[in-house]
């Protein structure tokens, strides 16, 4: 008995669907592998310490609106000094220990974290 053969049209259509599904899957999973893409900023070295930059930026918007004279460059300079030979946890510990607590929308945060959040809005 003759085996049924796939027509060229069916094969092309099937290949197209498979390619589309593959691309979709890749699109969904790539950001998890590579990190969500953000437009480059002069502060990316600092912002790389934030695990969830979107949530941080949400806080940062509130902080920034309360600080109309906020200077991102000055804040970044200050943060880079604090981060010298220290990681995020150590910087935040020092803030907490030394009483550098910022208030963002009423929330009490280590000052360096509040500044990072504000930089995340740039």
């Amino acid at each position, binding site marked *: 008995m003759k085996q049924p053969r796939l027509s060229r049209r069916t094969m092309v259509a099937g290949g197209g669907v498979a390619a589309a599904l593959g691309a979709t899957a890749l699109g969904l999973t790539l950001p998890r592998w590579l990190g969500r893409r953000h437009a480059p900023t002069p502060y990316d070295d600092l912002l790389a310490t934030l695990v969830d930059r979107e*949530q*941080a930026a949400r806080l940062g918007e509130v902080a920034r609106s309360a600080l109309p004279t906020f200077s991102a460059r000055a804040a970044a300079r200050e943060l880079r000094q604090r981060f010298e030979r220290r990681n*995020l946890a150590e910087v935040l510990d020092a803030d907490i220990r030394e009483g550098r607590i910022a208030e963002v929308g009423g929330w009490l945060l280590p000052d360096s974290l509040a500044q990072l959040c504000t930089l995340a809005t740039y």
Partner: protein
Amino acid sequence: MSAFIDARAIPSGTILQPDVAIIGGGPAGITLALALAQTRLKVMLFESGGMDFDAKTQALYGGKVAGVSYLPLDASRMRYLGGGSNHWGGWCRPLDPIDFEQRPWVRHSGWPFGIKELQPYFKRAQTLVEAGPWSYDRSTKPMAEVAEPLELGSGGVYTSWFQFSRQRDSVLPTHFGERYAADLKRVANLKLFLHGNATHLSIAANAANLDHFEISTFNGRKFSVKAKTTVLALGAVENARLMLASRDVASAGVGNGNDLVGRFFADHPIPRDTATLVSFAGDIPGYYFNAYDLNGALVRPAFAPRDDFKRNSKVLGSLTTVENAVELDDLGKAAVVTTALALGVDASNAKAYSVGCGLELEPDPERRLTLTDERDSLGLPRLKLSNRVSDSDFARYRLTMRELGRQLLAARSGMMRLNLKSRESWLAALDWGDHHLGTTRMHVDPKQGVVDANLKVHGLSNLYVAGSGVFPTYSASNPTMNLVALTLRLADHLKGIMR
């Protein structure tokens, strides 16, 4: 056992002559009467009300309130045997040592003695308010075995513990009138009069002692009480009113030569939802919300500033309690996620709670009671309360909350949001403890206090004041157990001088 006497049955013109007359049958008056039992002193206690609430009697409390919102004066007290204990919440906590100190950052602060003067009386007071075994801050260790409390990093705020009064069968709290009626009836040297309203204090012509006071009743009877010693135990508001209204010899009123009676009125502001507290680990133990029975002591934690933090940060007392679970808004969720991730903490089960507090106010001579032209049904001038709260009182509490928030971060156990910032937001959240304080303040200097260290009115040899009206500063602790202790001390003083 003798029954209480109905003052309405005493013929007009009668003159009663006890050794000690106590005016007012609230916690202070009842405590004093019980403490003077089994002495040779003839004691009489006069209570305006009866054994239960009566609207006509209660209406005698009516007055005006101006300034910062406050409960109507006839709604923040109870005028029948048991007084304020008839509507108290049963919250107890001893004063802290620093409460007695002259604190340079707190104007008009300083008691004439330290906590050691009261310590011998605390345990008897604890028994009278039926708050179980003395546990308070000794509860920390055993309660940690029940369930780990929310961890705080080292710093200026610690977990302190309230205890609660309770009556038999776990009915909260102890109503002094109901609870001690039978005990009072058993006191052989006591006569307790109900429905007798003190309407006038008559100073002797030499202005050096109280000659007698007058009792009026709703059925038109009037009689006099000429006691060797009289103790005003009407509560901080009515003590001041009776003293101010008795103006026949001294035009400014009794004990008011330095214009202090009625000044320095205070209460404990209880702002609601002052902050949101997040526990990263999730649910906090149930004892934060509902008192826990720790071997007979009903305990509940509160966050309190340490004495050294008060000194260093120039803050006043406060007691912050966790009230109820709340939902976070999007910003709150962002704050928790961002902070927990940055601290390396798992906050996937985080829970948020509303917190409230009781605050100590700084003494303020302009927060005061004055007489008005309006009179009650017995002819006594009604009062006006001019109520004030300063911005610095709120700002100082905020410093304590910031410290608590810092300590939660330090422990990586949680974080906080401060919900109140503007004066308007504070005032909108404000409730009051109905803890009337300060109107006949205690001070060794007659120019700075109405009564001396023994609670005797300056300049008068035989008139005393009991109750929290004599507190020169107010602590954040609830006053009832403390005023009972102070009254027990007064009883010992009177026993000593009247032997």
